[in-house]
């Protein structure tokens, strides 16, 4: 297929024992696609494999019809923003972009035009002569997106782009991603549910190297319907409830505590709640038997 990524039976091992990806099957089409999973779930491994920076052990990947083994062709159509990146600190924004543009094989005239356009898009035009070392975290991330878009890629891969950003920068960054996803595939890997909620229509949940869910956001929410409850309880009852249910939110109001929890069957007098993606995500982890203990310590 011309405008999609197809991943079939993908396996990746680190060393002989540690399996980072296990039989991953995914089809990713144009628009924003979220890859949700906790730290260590295998998201970065999958992103790097798609960006040709890691070699798979088995399975197949094709990006816009090009097999992943053809790294040179893949690199022409993929833009990549790694999780932990920076640029030469003594270079200015424009110098760094120009250097990376040359490495992308873009001609002088086109490069200059693209850099101007992209810096405008990410709101960095007035800072273009600032050195990279003088940029804030948010500005650096925006520069990261700009460099990933230099070659006008068909596929943009962004790995944990909002980690460490303040709320304002995070919203600005999400909007930027939505803007650029109109004409390409954008894969957003994150452990921050809010990022997916705000930007993606389709998503996959990755846990311990395996896909737990793949589909639309609304379908994911449907699966959690009728399984999220809330109740105000006496603080003395909390230890018992923590053992019985997976509490996903609580806050104290004097001697009472408002709790939000997951349950297959309703708790007496509990109110059924409208689930959000975080609830559904936790439900999937819980059902897979890998959910972490969320209820905190004994009181």
């Amino acid at each position, binding site marked *: 297929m011309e405008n999609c990524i197809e991943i079939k039976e993908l396996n990746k091992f680190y060393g002989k024992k540690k399996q980072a990806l296990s039989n991953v099957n995914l089809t990713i089409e144009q628009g924003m696609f979220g890859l949700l999973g906790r730290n260590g779930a295998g998201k970065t491994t999958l992103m790097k494999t798609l960006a040709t920076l890691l*070699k798979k052990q088995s399975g197949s990947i094709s990006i816009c019809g090009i097999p992943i083994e053809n790294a040179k062709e893949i690199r022409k159509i993929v833009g990549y923003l790694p999780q932990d990146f920076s640029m030469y600190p003594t270079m200015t924004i424009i110098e760094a972009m120009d250097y990376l543009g040359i490495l992308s094989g873009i001609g002088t005239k086109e490069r200059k035009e693209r850099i101007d356009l992209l810096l405008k898009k990410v709101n960095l035009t007035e800072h273009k002569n600032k050195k990279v070392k003088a940029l804030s975290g948010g500005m650096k991330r925006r520069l990261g997106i700009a460099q990933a878009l230099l070659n006008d890629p068909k596929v943009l891969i962004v790995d944990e782009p909002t980690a460490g950003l303040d709320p304002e920068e995070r919203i600005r960054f999400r909007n930027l991603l939505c803007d650029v996803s109109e004409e390409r595939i954008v894969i957003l890997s994150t452990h921050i549910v809010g990022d997916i909620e705000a930007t993606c229509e389709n998503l996959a949940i990755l846990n311990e190297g395996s896909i737990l869910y793949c589909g639309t956001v609304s379908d994911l929410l449907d699966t959690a319907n009728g399984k999220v409850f809330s109740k105000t309880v006496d603080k003395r009852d909390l230890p018992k409830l923590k053992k019985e249910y997976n509490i996903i939110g609580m806050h104290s109001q004097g001697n009472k505590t408002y709790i939000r929890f997951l349950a297959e069957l309703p708790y007496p007098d509990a109110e059924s709640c409208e689930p959000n993606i975080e609830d559904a995500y936790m439900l999937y982890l819980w059902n897979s038997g890998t959910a972490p203990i969320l209820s905190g310590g004994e009181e």
Partner: protein
Amino acid sequence: MLLGKEIRKTVLSLTFVAFIIALLVMTISQDVLNFSDEVIVFPKQGADYGIQQKEVPELIMPAAFSSLCEEFAANEYIAYPIGFYKSVKLNDTDREKMADIISTLSGAEQEDGSIIIGKDDEVSETKGDIEVTLSDDISYEEFRACMKQADDLIGGGSNYSENNLLNYSYVAVTYEEAIENYNLIASKDKFTGAYARLFCDFVGIILSIFPVFIAVTVCLKDRRAKMNELIYARKTSSFKLILTRYFSVIIAAMLPTIILAYISNISVWGQYSGMSLDYLAPLKYTIGWLMPSVMISAAIGMFFTELTGTPIAIAIQGLWWFIDINVGVSKLRGVHTLFELAPRHNALRNTQTFLDEFNTLAANRLIIVGAALLLVIATVIIYEQKRRGELSGYETIKTHIAGLANRKSKSAA
């Protein structure tokens, strides 16, 4: 375009600044930046033309033999096997073999490692001072063969090695020889070549070590700036990127060298007005003589840095350089070997030796260039593997060290 960017990146580093300072300190302190005091003039009759090393058997044989007897008597031999001083003491078996050599050379008998002086009635044994003289029947060829055996027994690099035997033979340069030397410099070196050669002799010491620092800095820069993955994911080929970076190091090292070579050479052009000069000599010598050293040093730097992700190349090149410089002290007059790093020719007027040794020097420089290019190709392969996640270098080393540390702490527990 990319080359320009890479050169800019290379020269805008503290390592490069240190290189320029080292280059200036070397050329100024060794008086090779301004040769105006060292004019080569046509010899005048009756003047002092200096001394020269010359292979004169009549001088070498008695002096070397006498030295050997003294060292034998003390059983303490001076040697520089890899350029460093070493005092060698022979065991009984080797001492006996050495006594055999002295016996062959002198005609005196030896028994159990002691020389027996006199053959009939007046027999005296000695292990201390010995008074034996070199036999008249020994030819120079036989003498050299014996000296080679003696050198082998000592472990090489002794006063009796083929090279060092010449140290026993310094003779005054005659008027005729001085004229011959002058004519050679005028006809073969066109004067400027002689100055360019002496410039290369000193500058080669810096150029055979500093490029490794520059190359290591260039290669580590991506990881330090956390820019590896941004570059790995680009369209450009590993071949183009590594080769461009390699040439940027070579150009960054060679450009100031060529400029200094010309500054040094131009300082004497005015002294030879009306004579035929080779104005390209500084360029020819810096490229032919110095560039191979720069190439191998940079290639070692890039290869080991890409392979390990560490600056270990500095230690590797540093060791080679240190040994080579020390060994080179015994070859200052311009004798060359196939695998030397920085060829020496510490004389302005020794053109004949240069001509005699030219083929070895040329072969050495070609071998060094070949080895450098092979290392660059190997670096391209390693870089491409790293880009595809098939080799991680630094990460692998870090994992192994962490694994070892874990095992150690577990066994300690």
